[in-house]
């Protein structure tokens, strides 16, 4: 099938938006890493439960702040010409459409 001609480089705005989306995708990975830290706490009574609880909630809060900030930025960054977000998505799954 015909490959639609995609620009190789993007305008500044679309570029910015795509990097924001990249950041959006990275947040849960970062979150997963942090939330797996308790796997190290398997020794009974080896540390303060209260501090550990606070740590988890602090990480939780950080995720919320990051996520909120990115959502806000995404909302105010215009999609650029045409199908910015969709184009970004298409780029991540190259050729995902036409075969099969």
């Amino acid at each position, binding site marked *: 099938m015909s490959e639609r001609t995609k620009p190789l480089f993007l305008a500044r705005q679309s570029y910015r938006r795509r990097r924001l989306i990249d950041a959006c995708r990275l947040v849960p990975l970062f979150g997963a890493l942090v939330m797996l830290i308790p796997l190290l706490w398997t020794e009974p*009574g080896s540390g303060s439960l209260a501090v550990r*609880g606070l740590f988890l909630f602090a990480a939780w809060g950080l*995720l919320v702040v990051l996520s909120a900030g990115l959502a806000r930025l995404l909302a105010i960054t215009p999609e650029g010409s045409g199908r910015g977000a969709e184009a970004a998505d298409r780029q991540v799954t190259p050729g995902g459409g036409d075969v099969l």
Partner: protein
Amino acid sequence: MSFDIVVGISLAYVLVLFVVAFAAERRARRGRLGWLRSPLVYTLSLSIYCTAWTFYGAVGYAVRSGLEFLTIYLGPTLLMVGWWWLLRKLVRIGRNQRITSIADLISSRYGKSASLGGLVTGIAVLGTTPYIALQLQSVTLSFGVFADTPVGWDTPDQWLVTAWVAIGLTVFTVLFGTRNLDANERHHGVVTAIAVEAVVKLVALLAVGVFVVWGIAGGIGETMARIDASPISQVPVDGSRWFTLIFLSGAAFLCLPRMFQVMVVENDDERHLSTASWAFPLYLAAINIFVLPIAVIGLDLLPAGSNPDLFVLTVPLAMNQDWLAMLVFLGGFSAATSMVIVAAIALSTMVSNHVVIPIWMWVRRGLGGAPGDVRGLVLMSRRLSIAAVLALGYFYHQVSGGGAALAAMGLISFCGVVQVLPALVGGLFWRGATRIGALAGTICGFAVWVYCLLLPSIGADVVMSAEMLANGPGGIGWLTPQALFGVPGLDPVVHCILWSMLINTLVFCVGSLASFPGPLERLQGAQFVNVFEDGANPRGWNEGAVESEDLLVMAQRILGAREAQNLFLEEARAQGKGGYLPDNTPDFLERLERELSGSVGAAAAHAMVEQIMTGSSVSVRDLMALADETAQIMEYSSQLEAKSRELERTARQLRLANEKLTALSVQKDAFLSQISHELRTPMTSIRAFSEILMSGEALSPDEQAHYSGVIHDEALRLTRLLDALLDLSVLEDGRAQLAEQDAVLRDLIDRAILSTTSLSSNTVFEIRRDEPSEKIVLRTDVDRLSQVFINLVANARKYCDAEKPRLDIRVSRAQGELTIDFVDNGSGIPAASQQLIFEKFARLSTASAVDGAGLGLAICREIMVRLGGSVAYLPGQGGAAFRVSLPVAEAVRAA
């Protein structure tokens, strides 16, 4: 606080909820949606994830397992902050395809498969029923706390309360959940009520938390000290459970029917998801932040043996904070009821669309005709399903008897529901996922769940014997339900998730790879996976001569008369037509199907439109038949192609043969003129000289002798010519007798050279030969072979045009064959003539000066064929070269 006041306040609260729902519904119907559609309401509606299990159970969970209770909320948190990965796509697909439930999503993805829809519905009902029972129990228990004797509550009273709660919930859900038939339309009343309840439960938990931290413990520092001093701090984190539960809760967040309902079906605007991506994790964090302090203080404050699941309620009561306790009670009530309401709506939609309608359609099929009044049927089946789901929960509660067994069901239901995950996620991201794979994977995962977790959890000797639980069925160790494949020592939940997910995913992948999807399945798969690619909807209907009226009749039955008429009117107007009947453009049919699928599910809607369209549309079956035909035509045309290629080959051969024949004919003509010339020349001289002799003139004896000599010579020449022709004709007819005898090859060549010496006496003709190699005894017809040799040598002598003519005679033996090459150094024979020289009468024009009838090589060839060998022209030797081959069996003995 007296029990009556509690009941009164609860009833008042329920009334408020009814009013809120009713007001929201009215507002929505007037089109003034406003804040009803705000992302805040959407986020709050997601909070039905936090059921009574969270509200009361989280504290109990914390008392038993420390920080582990957080995992249940960390999974959804990670999923929400990672909305760009998965949820965004899910919501977009849900909106594009007018999905009504998770069963509908999976059924639609895999070619609107009724079997998958039914399977997912079954799993959902099985996984949700204990959960509904759990909610009913929590309400009953919390009522019991306010009753005089919390523990020794009369069982009949308890049952009565539970029954009344169940009935009340049924009424509310039926009233606000089945108001409109279109399950895909938002239930603004329900969602608003749920949002209010979400606020109530959050406020209640925060209030208790603040009271505990600042009212009882005396500040953050003190609270932290008490946490560290409590027995909870000695509970270690179980690594495998921590990891598994985060995964499990995240997966359940996706797969739970009620979560799908609020997140995808009730979603008004995709942008709400981006707000919820941070607001919902914030809500979860807020609702959990005081769980640990409440657990610790509860342990300190209340007598040993108190139910930690009720600490949220019993701690304020113990401190005589009745109104706080009342707020907590309402919070717990909210948590329980909101979950039950949404779960009942989701399940009833699924049961109605994927069990009742397909069965009804199947029954109707025998009767034929267009679908009858579906509207009433769907509404009724949905209402009955709601009642049935709640009744099921109620009876489950009564049968299981409540208690700890029920509390453990929370995680067990999660494990069952997430068996849908591979089919769901695979369907969203992998176009190769097929119905067979999804069915097989889900069934296998489900079976593992039943075998490894559900049945053992009921207890030993109920379904499975203790012996079987310990040693496997019939002593087969690796089939032990809680230690499959000889991996013992795992936590049951971790064990079940590990094996069920592994087997489920594996079977799903293998099944998908090995099977071939149907056309509709492939179209749907492409639409789901590439939902962000814009482009025309490819599954469209063909424009045809369908009666719009039929469609309108059907749509009225399903959507309701006014809605259907509005839809048709709107479409007609958009097409620039008056009246109620738009043209049946593919776009319109597709839109209609989507609208219908909002009411009865994609599979049923497709089937219904198909039923009406059968006369005129191209159905999938037609398409497949068409494809078959096309394949046949292609095969036929490829056969034709092959045949035409064969014909071409034959034609080419014929053309070649024809060319050869033409050339031969030309040769024959040439020969005839040659032979007549050859015959006439001697005849002319004979006649002339015999006339002289006959004239009786005085001739000298010398003259007489000369003339009669000439006549004699010419007669001899004629005889030779006639002999040659006769010879050839004899050879060709196969009448020639071979007289085999032994001879030495060298002698034969000697004889050939000797008998041709006279031909070129005027020039020096050099003959080079290797005599030792010629010492070979042959058993053959010596005279015939000599004739060939003589002919070849004579040809060389006659036609070699080199200044110093030379002939090489080379003898060699290889591969069972004796070859004798005669190679001269002349200009050879042009390639064009090489094909012809062995034909009869062939004479190269350049050599016409030399006498001979052009029969020599033809005779040679015939002789060699008779002798079992061959003679051929050998190109590329620098001159004319002929190769005589004889089978070596004829030349065994060396001399």
